[in-house]
Each structure stands twice: as C-alpha cells, then as structure tokens.
C-alpha cells in the first residue's frame, strides 16, 4: 500500500493521541479527556485510511461502517452497568473476528502459493491469535452472562490436550508457510478456535477478572499481529499499547490473588476448593449468629463509623442503589461511611467501582483494600454484601486453604461484622469461610437488595 506522506503523518498523530488517551485514562481527573483523545485519534486514523489513493470502499463497506456504528451506539446506550463484564468480553471477540477475517482476505488476495514466507508467517500468527481471542471471548461472554455454567471444565488430560493442539498448530504453520495453501491456514485456525474455548472453559467463575483482562491483552496483540501482516505501523503500535495495558491489568489481578498467571490459566482453580471443603468438614465451625433488619438498623444508629464491602452478590442482586440510600441516610446522621473494594471483587477489574458510581456514590469514599485495611480495627460496623473469598480470614490463618496467602480485607478486626448472604446453605459459596463463625460476626440472610431496602425503611421510620 503506497501512502502519501500526509497520510503517514496523520497516522503518526493518531498513534500519539492513543498514547495520550491511555495516559489520561490512568488518572481520575483526566480520564474523560483521555477517552476523547482516543476518539479523535480513531477518527483521524479512519479518515486518513479512507483517503489512501486506490482505496475506493465498496458500498457494502460503507454500509458496514454505518450499520456497525449504529449497533455499537445502541449497545453502549442500552447496556446496564451490571452487564459490563459480558459486554467487554463480547467486544473482545469482535477484535478477534475482524483479525481472522482480514487474515483470510489477505490470503485469498494473494492466492494459493502467493506471497513470501515472512508474509505467510504474519498471516498465520494473525489468524491464530485472532481465532483464539474470538472463541475464548465468546465463551467468556456466555459464562459471564450465565448462559454457560461458570464452573471450570477440567478434562482429565487437559495439559496434554493443550500441548497437542499447540504442536498441531505449529505443524500447520510450517505447512502453511512452506506452501501458502489455504487448507493449513483453515485447519490451524480451527485448532486455535478449540484452544480458545478450552483455555477459558478450564477457568472458574472467581477467576473471571483475570480472564477478561487477559483477553483484553490478546485483543491488543491481535491488532498488532494484523499490523505486521498489513505492514501498518499504526496498528502495530496501537496493538502493542493495548496488549501491554491488558497484560498489566492481568498482572495486577493475579497479584491481588497471590497467584501466578500460569496458576490461573492452567491451575483450574475454582472447582477443587468446594470439593475439598466438603470432604473435610473439620473446619472451625460453630454457631452462626443471626441479626435481623431491625437489629442492624439499631446497631447502625449506635455506631459512628461504618464500612461497606460490596461483592459480586451485590451486583447480581442489583442492590447498589439500595446500598447508596443506606449510605446517604447514615451520612446524613453524621456517621463516617466508606466503601472498601477488593481488587478482584466482581467479575471484571474495577467492576464494583463502576457499580457504586452508577448508584451515584462519590468516588472519594470508595477506597481500595490497601487504603482501608489499617482503618478496619477502629471501625464499628462492617457490612459485607455478597462477598466471600475477599473477606475470608482463612487466607491469612490457614496455610492449607486454597486461597492461602491471598491479600484480603481484614473485616474481622472491626468491632462487628454483618455479613449479608443469600441463604444459610452450607458450602453454598464454595470455600468455607471461618468469618461466619467469629464471635463478632452476625449474619443477615436474604437477597441483598431486599435486605438492604428493609434496613433503609427501618432507618427512615426511626428518623
């Protein structure tokens, strides 16, 4: 593709804008501006590409832009914040799909046997990463949506299966690079599709934040691979930027769980713990103390400082607005109310922060684990809503626990912990949690939204 210098220059500006965009997005004050930089960069890149001489878009392509744009707009306007994880996963799959299709059209354009060996390598890598990202993301989407069980699927010889698929695709790659024929490319991408599904299938629901950020990273590498294939520096640099950003997020998530990325991908964590817990009932069990809505209201009125720990259960029950009302009521009575967010709470990195923001909770009272842990011993009441592993003292006390060593919110150090949980069924949430049996813990059973709303009504009645 011969480009005019002015087009090359425009693409360079777009790349700079993308870097500024990421930089903006790493800080709350400048985040919106960062996003605008991204939009402008994208507009410049597309505009410049459309003016490349000799590129006369087919009417179908124009229709695709208009249609895709409209669909994207509707999607963005309609989606609920609770569904963000699904949406992000779905969007990742589109990047993969686009890369696969572009790879195949490059191959078809060159014809069988056409092109150089290096070009074949580039096409092959692009199609493979694209296919893996696409099917992996689709499965992640279905899992997050609940259409497919979140339980990890662990085949007996899964490592062997992965290895043979890897070797199979290397063999196909060799054949394709050597011959330039279509079929090894097709077989190779089919293998990558299966590999994508299998990798994500083996990962349990609790590890979804890592999976989603990993797929985010892959979508970047995919774009970079397409850039190599099309000899387009803008795609390479942008793909590399996004790829490393996703990699950083995955790293942060893994660190927050005290696990290596290999352990997450190949460990099949998430299924074994419940079985282990069920098999060994010798956990420090005891009597669970209950508290009712009125009791909690009274306790809250008597306390000076409250910390709320939201988890995935709050998102599922869509309780964030009820929680915000509770927060406002207490703050109006002069109490110190703050939120404590664990890095891996929810199904997407930062998901809880978005939900609290959606409910209009100001972000400066929503604190990270490291910011609040030291304050917990001085806190009167901690309310845990739909969270379990992230407040489990076994992570610190029990070296045999599956989550041993994972940094957790030390809620048990506060004066009173109230845990809202949907039901009292033992083992419901997987790993047994000794927190429930601590003397300073009380359980508030019931659906998060209903339970918190009742507490709010109770508080209102006494105002």
């Amino acid at each position, binding site marked *: 593709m011969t480009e005019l210098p002015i087009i090359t220059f425009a693409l360079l500006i777009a790349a700079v804008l993308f870097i500024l965009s990421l930089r903006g997005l790493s800080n709350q004050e400048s985040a919106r501006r960062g996003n605008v930089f991204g939009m402008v960069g994208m507009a410049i890149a597309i505009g410049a590409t459309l003016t490349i001489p000799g590129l006369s*878009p087919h009417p179908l392509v124009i229709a695709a832009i208009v249609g895709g744009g409209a669909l994207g707009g509707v999607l963005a306007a309609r989606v609920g914040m609770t569904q963000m994880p699904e949406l992000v996963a779905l969007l990742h799959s589109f990047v993969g799909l686009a890369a696969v299709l572009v790879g195949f059209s490059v191959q078809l354009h060159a014809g069988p046997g056409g092109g150089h060996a290096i070009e074949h390598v580039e096409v092959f890598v692009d199609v493979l990463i694209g296919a893996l990202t696409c099917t992996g993301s689709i499965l992640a989407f279905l899992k997050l949506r609940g259409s497919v069980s979140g339980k990890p699927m662990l085949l007996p010889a899964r490592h062997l299966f992965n290895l043979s698929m890897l070797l199979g695709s290397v063999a196909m790659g060799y054949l394709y690079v050597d011959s330039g024929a279509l079929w090894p490319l097709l077989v190779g991408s089919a293998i990558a599709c299966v590999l994508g599904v299998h990798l994500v299938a083996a990962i349990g629901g609790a590890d979804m934040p890592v999976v989603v950020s990993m797929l985010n990273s892959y979508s970047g590498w995919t774009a970079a691979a397409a850039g190599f294939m099309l000899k387009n520096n803008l795609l*390479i640099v942008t793909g590399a930027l996004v790829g490393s950003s996703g990699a950083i997020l995955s790293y942060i998530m893994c660190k927050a769980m005290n696990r290596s990325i290999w352990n997450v991908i190949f460990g099949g964590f998430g299924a074994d713990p419940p079985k282990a817990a069920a098999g060994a009932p010798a956990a420090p069990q005891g009597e669970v103390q209950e508290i009712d809505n009125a009791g909690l209201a009274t306790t809250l009125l008597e306390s000076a400082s409250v910390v709320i720990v939201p988890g995935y259960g709050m998102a599922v029950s869509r309780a964030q607005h009820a929680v915000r009302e509770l927060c406002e009521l207490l703050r109006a009575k002069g109490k110190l109310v703050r939120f404590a967010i664990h890095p891996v709470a929810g199904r997407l990195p930062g998901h809880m922060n978005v939900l609290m923001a959606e409910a209009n909770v100001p972000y400066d009272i929503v604190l990270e684990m490291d910011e609040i842990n030291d304050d917990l011993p001085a806190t009167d009441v901690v309310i845990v809503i739909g969270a379990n592993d992230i407040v489990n003292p076994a992570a610190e006390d029990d070296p045999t626990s599956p989550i041993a060593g994972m940094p957790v919110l030390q809620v048990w150090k506060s004066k009173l912990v109230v845990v809202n949980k949907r039901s009292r069924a033992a083992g419901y949430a997987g790993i047994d949690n000794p927190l429930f049996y601590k003397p300073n813990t009380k359980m508030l059973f019931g659906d998060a939204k209903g339970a918190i709303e009742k507490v709010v009504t109770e508080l209102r009645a006494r105002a």
Partner: protein
Amino acid sequence: MSTTLIMGLYVFVLGAFVGWQVLSKVPHLLHTPLMSATNAISGISLVGSLVAAGSDHDVMTTVLGSIAVTAATINVVGGFLITDRMLRMFKKRPEIVR
C-alpha cells in the same frame, strides 16, 4: 522486505514499553473504563479491515472485509461511548447532597 519486519518489531517493542510505562499506576477505580477504552482502541483493526476490504473488489474479499469492518466498528463506537458513559458517572462528594 525484512527491513519492514524489523521496523515493525522496533515499533512494536517501543509501543509495548510505552504502554507498560504509562499504565503502571492505574487506580483500581479506573480498571473497567480503561478496559473498555483500550478495547475501543484495539478496534483500530478497523483500519486494517478497511484496507483489506477496499484494496480489490473480488466478491469474497469484499464480503469478508465488510463483516470485519462491521465487527470493528461496533467495537470502536460501542467501546468509546460506553467508556464515556461510565466516566460521566464517577463523581466527587458534593454531588451526593440532596
């Protein structure tokens, strides 16, 4: 030929490095918006799709290219708009007072 590849690798490594540097300290608060925005940005493959769909007019290439363009456009438009919607929700304390 190989100089193009080496130039590409050059750009790739520097790009990855810049990404790592710029984002090494992102507050947890911004993880989701960051993810949806980077997702929109990786829709830059739209540019690749456009080149692929537009460089010749044989039917198969155009059809494949157009599907790719649709997918990438959904990504770009959807990703940026949802990021903006999310970021508009993040507010500081004074606005909670009713």
